[in-house]
């Protein structure tokens, strides 16, 4: 191949949008809204796994909550025909993530697993990613958080403790994914098995509303779950191609 040909091939390669299709894994989560009871176990599990700081009442009053996964609640109707719908909201790991393009220092990007990764050490704290995120799932460290001793002994050594001025968000428990990949490699396997890795929220969910896995594998539980006709994306109209798929809540016909 001549130099020009090489150049042309490379050019075409680099001009191909969204080549995350070719990633090693495409980690995906489905959340069945028909099962979610809004209990909040996922929230606490996430806090425990990912060293999410305690914010305190005064800071919460100033609107500085810090929960990588949160339960949103939406009321419908008025008393007595009133309904409450829960929806867990976490980083959607969008394939066309608005947050990634806006970071001037590439502190957030798409990694080879199709995850939306956040590099804490690289972050300079412009907070523009949080503005660009339509799901509002990016959280900022407004100051150095403290773990009064001995609460600090609980901190997970696999996850870094973020300093002030750094943006953070759900990672799909990337430390667990890393570990599973290492185990697979040690066992001489090419790929992580389905169900071998689960983020803390999925693991703890008592109604089994959440399923996590690789959608590249058509046999995986999550692919099956995505096959459900109830599958949809939240805020589909903003076209972010999320990796979190929700299954529609089922509304029973209650004739009263």
């Amino acid at each position, binding site marked *: 191949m001549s130099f020009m040909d090489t150049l042309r091939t490379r050019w075409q390669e680099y001009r191909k949008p969204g080549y995350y299709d070719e990633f090693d894994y495409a980690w995906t989560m489905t959340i069945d809204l028909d099962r979610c009871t809004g209990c909040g176990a996922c929230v606490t599990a996430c806090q425990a796994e990912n060293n999410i700081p305690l914010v305190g009442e005064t800071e919460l009053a100033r*609107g500085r909550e810090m929960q990588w996964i949160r339960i949103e609640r939406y009321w419908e109707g008025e008393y007595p025909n009133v309904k409450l719908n829960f929806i867990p909201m976490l980083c959607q790991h969008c394939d066309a993530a608005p947050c990634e393009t806006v970071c001037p220092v590439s502190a957030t990007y798409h990694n080879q697993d199709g995850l939306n990764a956040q590099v804490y050490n690289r*972050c300079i704290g412009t907070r523009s990613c949080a503005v660009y995120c339509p*799901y509002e799932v990016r959280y*900022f460290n*407004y100051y150095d958080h403290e773990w009064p001793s001995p609460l600090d002994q609980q901190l997970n050594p696999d996850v870094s403790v973020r300093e002030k001025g750094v943006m953070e968000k759900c990672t799909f428990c990337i430390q667990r994914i890393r570990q599973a990949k290492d185990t697979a490699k040690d066992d001489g396997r090419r790929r992580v098995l389905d169900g071998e890795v689960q983020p803390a929220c999925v693991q703890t969910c008592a109604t089994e509303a959440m399923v996590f896995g690789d959608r590249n594998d058509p046999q995986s539980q999550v692919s099956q779950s995505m096959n459900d006709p109830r599958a949809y994306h939240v805020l589909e109209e903003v076209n972010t191609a999320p990796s979190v798929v929700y299954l529609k809540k089922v509304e029973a016909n209650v004739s009263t």
Partner: protein
Amino acid sequence: MSQREIAYSEVNDDIVRSLVVTGRNYYITLAVSILVTFACFFGPWFYQIQYGIGAAGMNHPTVWGTYLASFIFWIGLSHSGTLLSAVLHLTNSEWRKAMYRSAEAMTLFSVMVAATMVMVHVGRPWFVHWAVPYPNQMEMWPNFRSPLMFDVMAITTYMTGSIIFIYMGTIPDFAAVRDRTTGWRHHMYVLLSLGWRGTDTEWHRLHWAYTFLAVLIVPLAVSVHSIVSWDFALSIVPALHQTIFAPYFVVGAIYSGTAGIVTVMFVLRKYMKFEHLITKLHFDNLGKLLLVMSLLWTYINAVELFTGWYSESSEEYEALGFRLFGFYGPLYWEMILFCAVAPLLLISKRFRTSFVPMLILSIAINIGMYTERFLIVATSLPRQYLPDAWGMYYPSLVEILIMIGSFGMFTTLFLIFVKIFPSVSLYEVKETLPEPQPKLRTQSESGAS
């Protein structure tokens, strides 16, 4: 106009006097503004560096606050100076010449203050150099797809361009002042004037270099504020994600910049005793420009609201509704009053040529424009797609102090400027005066005839 005939030497005298003779008022003002800068800007900022951005009132989801509003405000204020100067230079407007120097200085210092606001805004300002493309060990380069990176490039270019533009135009003046000063000032001006003599070749080169710079700077200035607007418009935040944003910001910038020039002109005229250099003509012309800008601005605002209403989407409705009638609703109507209604007074020529009313209006316009920037941030971000994530944002004391301090910093820089740079262009003012006629020859000829 009612401009009195003045001689060339008088111009030199005036300017050199403004540089060398310094009254007590100047020192008091300078001391006050330095004090304000340190007490309100640097003090709180260092506290914020120590504590974290939490010292400001930002929260989830309103992660941007007054710092960014101030940033846009100062960038906007910078727009009239260099841009106006360049445009008027290219169109050979005579009336530009007495005012463009200070207008450009305003540009320069507002860009500087804006750049500082970026430092104040980011969470880890000590790593802000990572946003600059330079070869490094980590082989990490900034993300050139980011609108914020466009900002970095555009503002750097604009700042460089503005510094060069103002400096190039001042070289002959430095030379003129060089010859009239002594001591450390003389040495400083020797350096600053670069050995300028004023030969015909130098004038010729300067003219062309200056013209090319002007040609380059006009599209640059327009691009800078368009790019700043894309920080917002490229997001998908309701009420920010609007195609009208680039012209909206450019028009707003020129609008507030022009108003800023009026304010600065008034102050210079009054306190530097430039009554004969800065005249009603300038205020009249600036007033006309302000009126045009105000109408444009009002139109674009109407378009913005119309787009939101026409979209029929709950997101746009709620965000615009919150801006108009929410907690910060009164500020919105204040902005409309100051920026859309009050400027209609400019239709009257009597108003345009009265100094004090023009000063009041120009300050009001800039208050309104600051409000606009504040509202862009503070009323859009709290009302986004997921209602359960809605929140409210109230500026904290630190933020308000830093906002006040940024004005102090601007004033300080400007006060230092007027003592170093001739704040009115010597040679261009001279150009506007009638050319000196040869006296001796005339006498001898008349005697002969």
